[in-house]
C-alpha cells in the first residue's frame, strides 16, 4: 500500500467518525435551540392568554390560532396545588393535513378572579423534527463528501509535492549498488524539508561509509593476494631447485610433489581471488564483440584433450549465433570456468550438453544430486570430494555475469546439472 493511499484511507475513516459525532451533536444543539425558542414563545403566549383571560374572561376555552392553540380547563384546588409548570413534547391533530403533527406544549395552572383554579395548556406546532433530521443528515453527508473530496485532492497534491524528495531518494536507493552506482551517480536531492534533508544526509553518509568499507575490503583482498605472490614464488621455486638435487630419493620427491601441488593450489586460489577483486574493481574496461560459439568450440578442443581419460561425450547444439560485447579475457574466463566445471564434475563416460541460441547459452552435465542453488555461486562453496577445486570458479562466473548484466541460473533435472546464461537483448 502506498503512503499516499494509506494516509488518505486513514483520513477518510477518521473524518467519517468525526463528522458523524459532529452531526449528532449539531443535531442535538439544533433541537435544543428550537425547543428553547418554542418554549420562550409558549411562555410569552401564555402571558398573553392569561392577561386576556383575566381582563376579559373567556367563554371559549379552546382557541385555535395560526401559531398554535390553547385550552383552559377548570381543575380542583388540590390538584392545582400539586401542579407545576412543565413543557412537554406532544402531538396535535391538524385538520387540514388530517394527521398528527409534533407539537410543543406548556402546561400550567392559574387562579381566575372567581377563585377557581384552571389548567392552561398552550400548544404550538413545532417544525417537523423528522424533516430536520433528514435535512441535517443530508447536509452532513454532502459536507462529508465535499470535505473528503477536497481533502483527498488537497492532500494528494500536497503529499505528492512534499513527498517528492522521498520518492527521489527511494528511486536512487533502488538503483544503488555497492561499489558501482553511488560514486558515478551521487544523490542529488535538494529539499527545504528538514526531515528529508536529514534523511538524505544520513543516507549519503551511510552509503559513503559502506563504500569506504567495501573499498577497503576489496583492497585488502587484492593486496593480500598480491603480497602472497612473491612468497609463493619463492617456495615453489625452492622446491623446484630441491627436486633437482641428485641426492633426492623417490620418496622425498613424492613428498616434494605433494608440497608442490598444494602450493600450486594456493597459487590458483590466490590468482582467482585477485581476478575477482580485479573484476569488481572494473579493471577490464576494453570490450569487443565476442562470438560465444567460436570461443566455446576453441575451448572444447583443449578440455577434450585434458579430460580425454574420462571419455566424456560432448554434444554441442548450435541453434543460433551468439555474439556479445564484452572483454576478451573475461569472456574466455567465463566460458572456460563453466566448461571446466562441467568437465571436472561429470562422472566417467558421462555426457556434457551445450546448447547455444542467439540469446541463451546452456551448459548441462551429468551429475548425481541437485546442488544448493543459493550457495553454488558463493565463494568457497565446493564439492567435498573435490579437494583440488578452489571453490571460486563459479563465483567468478557469477561476478562476470553480473558485470555484463547477464542472468545466470542453475537447475537440476534428468540427472543433469544445468547452467543457463541469458543474454539480454
Amino acid at each position: 500500500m502506498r503512503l499516499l493511499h494509506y494516509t488518505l484511507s486513514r483520513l477518510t475513516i477518521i473524518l467519517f467518525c468525526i463528522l458523524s459525532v459532529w452531526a449528532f451533536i449539531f443535531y442535538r444543539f439544533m433541537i435544543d435551540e428550537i425547543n428553547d425558542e418554542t418554549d420562550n414563545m409558549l411562555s410569552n403566549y401564555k402571558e398573553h392568554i392569561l392577561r386576556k383571560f383575566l381582563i376579559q374572561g373567556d367563554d371559549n376555552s379552546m382557541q385555535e390560532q395560526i401559531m398554535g392553540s390553547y385550552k383552559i380547563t377548570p381543575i380542583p384546588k388540590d390538584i392545582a396545588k400539586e401542579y407545576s409548570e412543565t413543557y412537554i413534547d406532544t402531538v396535535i391533530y391538524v385538520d387540514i393535513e388530517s394527521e398528527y403533527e409534533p407539537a410543543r406544549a406548556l402546561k400550567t395552572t392559574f387562579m381566575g378572579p372567581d377563585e377557581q383554579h384552571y389548567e392552561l395548556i398552550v400548544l404550538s406546532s413545532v417544525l417537523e423534527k423528522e424533516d430536520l433530521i433528514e435535512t441535517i443528515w443530508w447536509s452532513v453527508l454532502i459536507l462529508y463528501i465535499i470535505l473528503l473530496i477536497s481533502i483527498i485532492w488537497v492532500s494528494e497534491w500536497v503529499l505528492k509535492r512534499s513527498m517528492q524528495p522521498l520518492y527521489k531518494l527511494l528511486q536512487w536507493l533502488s538503483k544503488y549498488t555497492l561499489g558501482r552506482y553511488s560514486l558515478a551517480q551521487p544523490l542529488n536531492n535538494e529539499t527545504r524539508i528538514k526531515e528529508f534533508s536529514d534523511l538524505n544526509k544520513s543516507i549519503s553518509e551511510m552509503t559513503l561509509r559502506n563504500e569506504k568499507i567495501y573499498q577497503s575490503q576489496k583492497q585488502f583482498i587484492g593486496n593480500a593476494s598480491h603480497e602472497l605472490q612473491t612468497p609463493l614464488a619463492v617456495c615453489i621455486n625452492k622446491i623446484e631447485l630441491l627436486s633437482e638435487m641428485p641426492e633426492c630419493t623417490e620418496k622425498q620427491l613424492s613428498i616434494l610433489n605433494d608440497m608442490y601441488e598444494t602450493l600450486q593450489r594456493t597459487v590458483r586460489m590466490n590468482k582467482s581471488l585477485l581476478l575477482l577483486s580485479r573484476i569488481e574493481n572494473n579493471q577490464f574496461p576494453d570490450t569487443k564483440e565476442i562470438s560465444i560459439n567460436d570461443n566455446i568450440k576453441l575451448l572444447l578442443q583443449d578440455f577434450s584433450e585434458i579430460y580425454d581419460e574420462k571419455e566424456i561425450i560432448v554434444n554441442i547444439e548450435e541453434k543460433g549465433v551468439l555474439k556479445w560485447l564484452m572483454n576478451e579475457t573475461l569472456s574466455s574466463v567465463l566460458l572456460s570456468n563453466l566448461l571446466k566445471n562441467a568437465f571436472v564434475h561429470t562422472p566417467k563416460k558421462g555426457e556434457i550438453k551445450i546448447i547455444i541460441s542467439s540469446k541463451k547459452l546452456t551448459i548441462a552435465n551429468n551429475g548425481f544430486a541437485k546442488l544448493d542453488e543459493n550457495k553454488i555461486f558463493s565463494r568457497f562453496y565446493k564439492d567435498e570430494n573435490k579437494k583440488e577445486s578452489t571453490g571460486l570458479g563459479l563465483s567468478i562466473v557469477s561476478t562476470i555475469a553480473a558485470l555484463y548484466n547477464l542472468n545466470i541460473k542453475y537447475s537440476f533435472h534428468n540427472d543433469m546439472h544445468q547452467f543457463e546464461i541469458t543474454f539480454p537483448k
Partner: protein
Amino acid sequence: MKVLIIEDELSLQETMKLSLEREGFVVETAGNYSQGLLKIEDYNYDCILLDIMLPGGNGLMLLEELKRMGKKESVIIVSAKDSIDDKVAGLNLGADDYLAKPFHLAELNARVKSVIRRNKAGGSLEITLGNMVVYPDLQTVKINNKELVLNRKEFSLLYYFITNPNRLINKIALAESVWGDHIDQADNFDFIYSQVKNLRKKLTLSGASVEIKAVYGFGYKLVTE
C-alpha cells in the same frame, strides 16, 4: 650469455640465479633501483629480468632509462602484479616479455632462452640437441634431417623440454605451459602422462638421441645422451 636479475626479494633472486646458472648463464643481481641502474649503465647483458616494484623506484622507469641509453638488451618483466595495465605499459616501453609471479623455474628458463634467441639478429633460429634440430618459428622438428610430424600440443611440450634440457620439470609446470590456465582444476594429470607417452613414442621411433624420462611422482626430464 649474461643475465641481470633486478629483484628485491633476495630469496627469489637467489633461486632464479641458481636456476639460470645451471643453464649456463652468467648471472648478476641487483636488489634495488639504484643498483639496477648502476649495472645497466656499466655493463651489457643479453637479458634483464626486471621486477616492477623496487625499493627506490619503479622498474618501468629503469626500462625507459635503458631505452634512452639506446641499449638493445632483451627485457622480461617479472611482476607480482599481473595486471594488464602493467603488462601493456611494459610491452609498450619495449619489454620483450612479461612473466607473472609466481612462475615455474622451467618457464623462466624457457622465456629467457626464447627472448635471447629472438633478439639474436641474424643468428641461427634453430635449436640443436643431439641429432634433433628444432625450428621454433616454423614449429617443425627434424631428426637426422628427417622431419618429425608433431601436433601443436606435442610441439609445445617438446619445445618446453628442449629449453630445459636435463632439468626435472614438474608435471604441473608442464601442463600449464601447454594448456595455460585451463588445467586449473584438473583433478588428475593423466592427460599429461598420455601426451608425454605419445611424444616419447614418436621420438623413439624416429631414432632421436634425446629421451624423455619419467621421474616417479614428480614429473619428467629430457635426457640428452
